[in-house]
């Protein structure tokens, strides 16, 4: 049973436009959410996170929005650049002390020239 769902396996966006990557979760106990970015043949790298006490967190071109009532979060990249082409993983954790992060399957983002 997937607790973190990224329903779009891939997404293509024109360079300069906005990329929106979506993530849904089922566990209402999740209270901390992260996005990781992964290039081929490399490990994932941390991108941005958000605590459930917030509904938005911004870092440069990257903004994460959290809608707790819908159990939905999204990552916005504006403007999209060629170097943003990668796989993006949504992840979540709960404050239960078991130290686990649950990852989604990932969305492959293609930035088109």
């Amino acid at each position, binding site marked *: 049973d997937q607790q973190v769902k990224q329903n779009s396996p891939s997404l293509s966006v024109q360079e300069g436009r906005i990329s929106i990557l979506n993530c849904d979760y089922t566990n209402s106990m999740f209270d*901390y959410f992260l996005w990781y970015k992964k290039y081929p043949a490399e*490990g994932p*790298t941390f991108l941005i996170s958000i605590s459930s006490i917030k509904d938005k967190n911004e870092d440069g071109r990257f903004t994460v929005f959290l809608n707790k009532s819908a159990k939905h979060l999204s990552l916005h990249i504006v403007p999209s650049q060629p170097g943003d082409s990668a796989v993006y*993983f949504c992840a979540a954790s709960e404050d239960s002390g078991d130290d686990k992060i649950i990852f989604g*399957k990932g969305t492959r983002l293609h930035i088109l020239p």
Partner: protein
Amino acid sequence: NAGVTQTPKFRILKIGQSMTLQCTQDMNHNYMYWYRQDPGMGLKLIYYSVGAGITDKGEVPNGYNVSRSTTEDFPLRLELAAPSQTSVYFCASSYSWNREETQYFGPGTRLLVL
């Protein structure tokens, strides 16, 4: 700093063979983790360690063993390789389990069991 390094990068094993995946970090991190990523799937936690001498099971520990004799090293052992263990294995580390503490990942080991 090299960060998190993993060896080998790629390995082919026959069913029933054993091997150790090596992971080393030079950031003096207390926490270390092993994940596997199957094709089209997210990362699943195999084992983790909160410090030298302390390890604990993650979501998918069956078929694996770990040890943590030093802060820097966290090897993952496969005793009897099975085709279901074909995957990409990522080692990660973090300074603490403050959830706002970033996990740093190694480049991965791609394992094929035939």
